[in-house]
């Protein structure tokens, strides 16, 4: 196999092109768009992935939100090739395919004619596609199809679909992003709101067993009740309250935890933890 002399970019590798076409196909397949075929010519080092985009079948108001959604689907497919190429070959992007660029521009112009808007829109969809392509599942499928493509030369839409359905995705780590039906976040169990609610109006000194320094520091910052204390993050207490150092902060945090109370960022961390555990309980790709 010889590299054609007609190629303009001297750095372009065969793998770039294969990943490019495979990414178009995989993103189209994952978004439920009909692929006509994927063609790759080893002699010419050229590829094509014609598809029937959502905008090709769109009927209705072109300035409406449905048109925007359909256009974004097509734009993601057009962007996928170049984005995957860049992700695969981290050092450079090796030029843009003009076919993809014109496809993007035409898709956008169905919906809007304002050029600065189209630029910003295209940039946003490119970033969204990057996030989509970098998902472990999508990227595994892209690499698998890129390896398969040279064996066939031309793969029909049905063949691509059958091949991608058979790609095994390791399920060691569940996918944290872009889930279609995320499981509901379980309610707080460690600290029922009812239990803490009674403490909110009470004085800090009555509820928490604190050292003299801690009591004086909180009083100096006009933090008298538990509710007022829970409005401050640990950072606020450490850096905004006078005379309150690391040891005193640790003491306050320990006391609050002992009573099942949590400062704002701890509540956020706890929520994140619950979300993560809920997602891990249910693998997406079995």
């Amino acid at each position, binding site marked *: 196999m010889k590299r054609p002399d007609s190629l303009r970019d001297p750095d372009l590798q065969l793998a770039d092109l294969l990943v490019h076409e495979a990414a178009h196909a995989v993103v189209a397949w994952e978004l439920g768009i009909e692929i006509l075929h994927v063609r790759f010519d080893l002699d010419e080092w050229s590829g094509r992935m014609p598809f029937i985009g959502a905008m090709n079948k769109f009927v209705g108001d072109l300035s409406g*939100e449905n048109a*925007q*959604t359909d256009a974004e689907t097509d734009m993601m497919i057009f962007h996928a090739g170049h984005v995957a190429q860049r992700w695969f070959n981290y050092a450079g992007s090796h030029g*843009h395919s*003009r076919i993809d*660029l*014109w496809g*993007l*521009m035409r898709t*956008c112009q169905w919906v*809007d*004619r*304002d*050029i*600065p*808007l*189209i*630029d*910003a*829109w*295209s*940039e*946003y969809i*490119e*970033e*969204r596609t*990057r*996030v989509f392509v970098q998902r472990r599942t999508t990227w595994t499928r892209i690499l698998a199809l890129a390896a398969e493509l040279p064996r066939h030369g031309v793969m029909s839409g049905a063949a691509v679909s059958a091949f991608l359905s058979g790609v095994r995705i390791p399920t060691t780590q569940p996918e944290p*992003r872009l889930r279609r039906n*995320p499981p509901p976040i379980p309610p707080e169990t460690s600290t029922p709101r009812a239990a803490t609610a009674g403490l909110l109006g009470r004085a800090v000194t009555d509820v928490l067993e604190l050292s003299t320094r801690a009591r004086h520091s909180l009083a100096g910052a006009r933090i008298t009740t538990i509710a007022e204390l829970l409005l401050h993050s640990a950072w606020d207490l450490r850096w905004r309250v006078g005379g309150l150092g690391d040891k005193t902060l640790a003491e306050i945090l320990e006391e609050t935890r002992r009573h099942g109370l949590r400062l704002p960022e701890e509540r956020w961390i706890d929520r994140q933890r619950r979300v993560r555990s809920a997602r891990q309980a249910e693998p997406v790709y079995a």
Partner: protein
Amino acid sequence: MRCRIQMSRRAHPHALLYHYAAHAMVMAQYGIQIFSVRVHGVRRHGAIHADLPLRDGRENRRMVERDVAAICAGFEAQKYGCGHARPMADCWDDSGTTLKRLEPFTRDGAELSAWIQYLHERSRVTVMRWWGEIATVAHHLDQAHVMTGVDVSEILEDYRRNPFRGTVSPFRFPRREEHGTPTGGNVDQIWSRPTLSELLRVTQ
């Protein structure tokens, strides 16, 4: 959602009116409930209270884009109405409110930035397209000081029913275009990825 501004004395006298009129007009257009819009203190203070719930990231992106378009409209109208191509002093962009609404949908910083940029552009186009309505609401707001969502809807209905309505352009000020690279800020000197139109060399 609550947007509250206090302007400096140097601000354009209509800046605040445009800001709140655009919020109100776009919200009314999208069917978002407005509790009150108010401007007082010789156009120096203003506030809008509307029903824009925080979404938890599971809904359709279109819904949050609609909310954010209504939020960004204030900034874009203020810029457009006062003739500035770039944000100036006293241009209140509601960025905190915007960020809070978009963050549940993505954790990727680059995607978030690009999304906000896109929604600002989308709002700018919306504001330019509906400038007549926004200017009308701003005029009524200047006279009434306080309006409810029903008042805004009635004003818009009256405006659209009027067969003699003309084209309204921003008041008195010429459009100030952005500077070119040599006189621009440092931000112009930083390399950025070429945009789609730059790659294709498309001009409007």
